[in-house]
């Protein structure tokens, strides 16, 4: 009986010491993604709308820019990257911390924009010399 009491105290102590993770929703069981907004309050639309519709906005904009040649649209992937790239790493990717990747990893959505688009802000490529 004494041994059982010690064991219960030990268990309670470890539960109290370990840091409490943030959980999604009221009484949720899944941890929330870590989203850092580097320059808050400057987005082209309110956060709620961006969360739901950013993919639609980018999809329509990409067709208008690519096919019709319309430039300077409010929604633009480059503008997203310039604003949302991490101040530490300079990119919107990165395991669990990058603005785009952290959320997409959490939502289990494959993010293939960056197989072609440059994820780093202010990047300047140097070509090969022959």
């Amino acid at each position, binding site marked *: 009986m004494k041994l059982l009491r010690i064991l219960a105290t030990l268990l309670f102590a470890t539960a109290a010491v370990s840091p409490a993770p943030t959980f999604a929703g009221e009484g949720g069981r899944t941890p929330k993604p870590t989203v850092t907004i580097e320059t808050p309050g400057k987005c082209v639309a309110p956060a709620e709308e961006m969360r739901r519709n950013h993919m639609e906005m980018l999809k329509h904009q990409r067709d208008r820019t690519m096919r*019709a*040649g319309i430039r300077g649209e409010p929604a633009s992937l*480059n503008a997203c990257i310039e604003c949302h790239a991490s101040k530490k790493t300079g990119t919107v990717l990165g395991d669990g911390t990058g603005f785009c990747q952290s959320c997409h990893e959490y939502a289990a959505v494959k993010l293939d924009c960056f*197989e072609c*688009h440059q994820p780093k802000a202010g990047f300047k490529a140097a*070509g090969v010399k022959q």
Partner: protein
Amino acid sequence: MSNTNPRRAFLAAAGAGVAGLGFTAIAPGLHLMAVGEANAAMRPAGTPASPAIRWGLLIDASKCAPGCNKCVEACHDENGISEQLPDPRQNSQWIRKIELVDRRNGRTTTLPMMCQHCAKPPCVDVCPTGASMKRADGIVLVDRHTCIGCRYCMMACPYKARSFVHAPLTEQNPEVPRGKGCVESCTLCVHRVDKGQQPACVEKCPEGAMTFGDLNDPESAISKRIAAANTTQVRSDLRLDLGVRYQGI
């Protein structure tokens, strides 16, 4: 991202916009527009490419210097073409220098060869997904969002102008997205043209052998030169109505 002051960034952007337009402010709200045809006007934000314009390029092969590779290097820098694959035949070639030799007398001509931006492009005809496309102002492009990498356009192109990206890339320029599994070719530096600038190869040619401009505008430098000199369309027998013309070949 080094510029963190939003007001300063705005001023810099506004300054760049004014410089790109070739405006000189006489008084507030009153501008003197530069008449030189070196730079086309920047298309205002929100307006699509105009079908009234046909962008073209005139290359004077008699001025093109043998051994000079400046246009190719300028293209690589501008478009972030930096990959060096184990098999060099798989490297992307948006522009290449070629040498023509007259076997009878050994006369050598060099010229840069790239996408000829046909008015009737065979690559667009054969594309099964509609990814290969011609923009309203005559620039032939690949929409990588719909390209499936079948390479049918590469076979259809009479100028071997297109390349396939064989390996994953990480060094793309923000304005020039490119990636594995898609076909690509010269875009006539569409991102620069839309800002009112010249293609990188035209700007960097030390001999001034390349002229860029609107083929539809009879007053443009390129149209005047084509009207005055004898110019050639490569493989004109195919009647593709090319946007790139050559002189002295």
